[in-house]
């Protein structure tokens, strides 16, 4: 339950932060959520990771659907990911997930060190 709350909170706070701040505010969002909803480091990492995997992956997938993959195919051929739009969505999700995961893990360690 705590895990799911952390995931949802991370995704929500990261989204809100993204409206106003730079992209790396997702790390801060995950960090704060991990402070508030304390879990062990591994679980915190996974919650942050999952939260952003869903947020960025879902967001990108939704934009891509709306766009009928016009842009993603071009970007995926440029980056280079063989023009594969799905792979580009997965890479997008993974990048956000990793940054948030580490942010959340740091939060978890900070809170446990304060004990």
């Amino acid at each position, binding site marked *: 339950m705590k895990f799911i709350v952390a995931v949802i909170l991370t995704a929500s706070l990261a989204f809100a932060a993204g409206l106003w701040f730079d992209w790396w505010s997702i790390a801060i969002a995950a960090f704060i959520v991990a402070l508030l909803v304390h879990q062990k480091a591994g679980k915190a990492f996974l919650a942050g990771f999952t939260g952003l995997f869903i947020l960025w992956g879902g967001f990108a997938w939704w934009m891509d659907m709306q766009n009928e993959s016009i842009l993603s195919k071009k970007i995926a051929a440029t980056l280079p990911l063989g023009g594969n739009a799905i792979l580009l969505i997965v890479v997008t999700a993974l990048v956000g997930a990793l940054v948030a995961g580490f942010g959340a893990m740091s939060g978890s360690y900070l809170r446990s*060190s304060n004990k």
Partner: protein
Amino acid sequence: MRIVPFMVSAAATAGLVWALNKPWGSAVPMPLGKFLSPQHGFWQNAEAAGYDFTADLKFPELKGDASVYLDERLVPHIFAENDEDLYFLQGYIHAKFRLFQMDLQTKAAEGRASEIAGAVAVNFDREQRRLGMKYAAENAMKEMEKDPASLAMFSAYTKGVNAYIHSLKESEIPVEYKLLNAKPEAWSNIRTALLLKMMAKMLSSGTENDLLNTNAKSIFGYDAFKQVYPQVPDSLVPIVPKGTVFDTAGIKPVKPATADSLYFGTKDTMMMAEISRPDKNNGSNNWVVAGSKTQDGAPILCNDPHLELSLPSIWFELQLSTPTSNAYGVSLPGSPFVIIGFNDSIAWGVTNSQRDVKDYFEIKFKDASKKEYWYNGKWEPAMIRYEEIKVRGKGTVYDTVAYTVFGPVIFDESFSNTVSNKRNLAMRWTAHDGSNEGMTFYKLNRAKNYDDYVNAISTFDCPGQNFVFASKTGDIAIWQQGKFPARWDGQGQFVMPGEDDSYNWQGFIPQSENPHAKNPERGFLESANQRPADSSYPYFIPGSYITPRGIAIEHFLSGMSGITVSDMMRLQNNYYNELANDALPVLLKYVNEAGLNTEARKYIEIVKAWNMEAGPASKGQTIYQCWWDSLEAAIWKDDISKTDPMAPWPEEQTTMEWLARDSSSLSYIDNINTQETETLDMIVTTALNKASVSLAQKEAEGKLEWTRFKNPSIYHLIKDGLPAFARKGLNVGGNGNIINAVTHSHGPSWRMIVHMVSETEAYGVYPAGQSGNPGSKYYDNFIDTWVKGEYYKLWMMKATETGDKKVKWVMKFGKG
């Protein structure tokens, strides 16, 4: 207790963010984290297929209310209450759909490409500066500012562009900026001037060949030069119909006494050449048929400018309407006005004049500081411009350019292609002279009749254009308009001595003497980059003329009557190879079939059965072209490559005429690098045998069909940098010398047909789309229509038609 893991984890997070927040070199030049972030990066540019462009916006710069109606092709129909609001909105809309293009093109024009592309563009930038592009734009600005009305229009446009730029959130900037990790720069009037100078360079900087001609003269000598590079081809069909009587020249330039010895007689060579010469195929077709030749008695005007095909296109389609004016056509993003189009009374179109308006003069400096040069018997001070080129990822490169009485010194010790050549060459180019070309279009957008049209174009100086015209009252006309130097015979074909004024231009051809024609008896007029007049025109007018398309258009139009719009559509898409029709009989006459290899025998049978149509599936066109190119190389290459850089290739028209007329007089047939004496039948035969080797290879790759052979493609502005943004392998035929002038990535950049019936009926298409956003479905949605040779009906919307179902979105603008 958890301090250490926290520190490690926090450091890992910071490290990851740091790595994802900076560019990763040239392969990934953008911060990947930001780029991939769906809320910040490229995903934001993935425009929903059903995106709603509706808007309600307020700007303090506006004087009244205005509306932009976007139709189903994303063509804006801009309705404003006054001119300033109209051009403010044109600027806003241009920026909304084409910001990156406008920014990139004008930066490149100014010699600032290195700011985006890095060190690879430094020499390009230096050349742009040494061409005096900014200097030219500054001089244009002075003219623009002299006229308060013109200043008001250009300033309103600039404000519109900037209003859009300032409204952009960082996440909304065009995706190219995100890819390049760059930001848009504010607009200014001088950037509009720079864009127009970019056009001047594109169309009037590659039309002279002074440097390479100087090499050609050293190879052939002046007398033979005149035969190899003739001024008037035998088969010329000029723009102004043959038999037109010209007035005697109003100005008679005098050849300097030393010309024979110091100019025509010298055999020196030039070891430098420009880096970024405009494409030789830059040209166009336009023609107009009078009511006497059309089915319903109303004139029809046609135009298709041949330029580099790019994504986004150089053109942007729109309608500009106020209570006192109404124009429709294509505009240049970066400039106000409709450039090619029509209004409720007239229609106009342009082709390039191809005239030589740029000459080179050799300069003697007192010392390396270049501050003084020898002129008319004394040391004159040069104006010095210090150029600072900011290079992305590197420092700043400095350059010093000296300006003489002629113009900027483009080549000198510090800027030439080979170390051994340290000559100083200044250029005299009409693009440097102050003029206000924009106002020609302002006036054309509002012209009501022939007199208005003549008045509008009479101040258009550079690049020289063939303005074709039709009115609803039945007039048709064409003027070759521009500011052209009055030259003595041979002046400015080669680099000229610049130590005094004796070789400088002595004046300009009076505007009224520019070649023109109105309502000819035959009922049609055309231009296709050929020489404007035959040898009876009383001036020496060198240029890079293209002859075959004019012959073909004239050939078809003279045979037509009861012309309809569909006839004109077919003609714009015509694939008939006029030159091949003349050249192929010569090839077949001289070829010795017994001397052909097996492959060549197969190919000659195909080409014998060929109908001269260069359609996409044509194999005959591919074989003919390879054979002809191989023959031209055999005739000329040994001779013209005696200098480095090579002398210019003679025109294919010249070679064809020479072979058809009297091949025995063509002494260049012999390969000077071999012991035996080649004859025409030998080299024609060898040429096909040689071509067959590469043709067989192409055939094995499945590329013998013309379209597969030339692979027609439209690249993004960044070309090889963004190959995935291009459209390749388009199924079209044609060639530069054919009416449908599609080459690999160059050709009809806009096809327009305007039928001057009481309710104007117009058709048009260009190979791209209205949106410059590669993430929009409007980025390339016109291409398939263009490939098929089809057109869109152009809708001149009326103010009363706001409820029409063609209006998909409305953008409302108001003061606020």
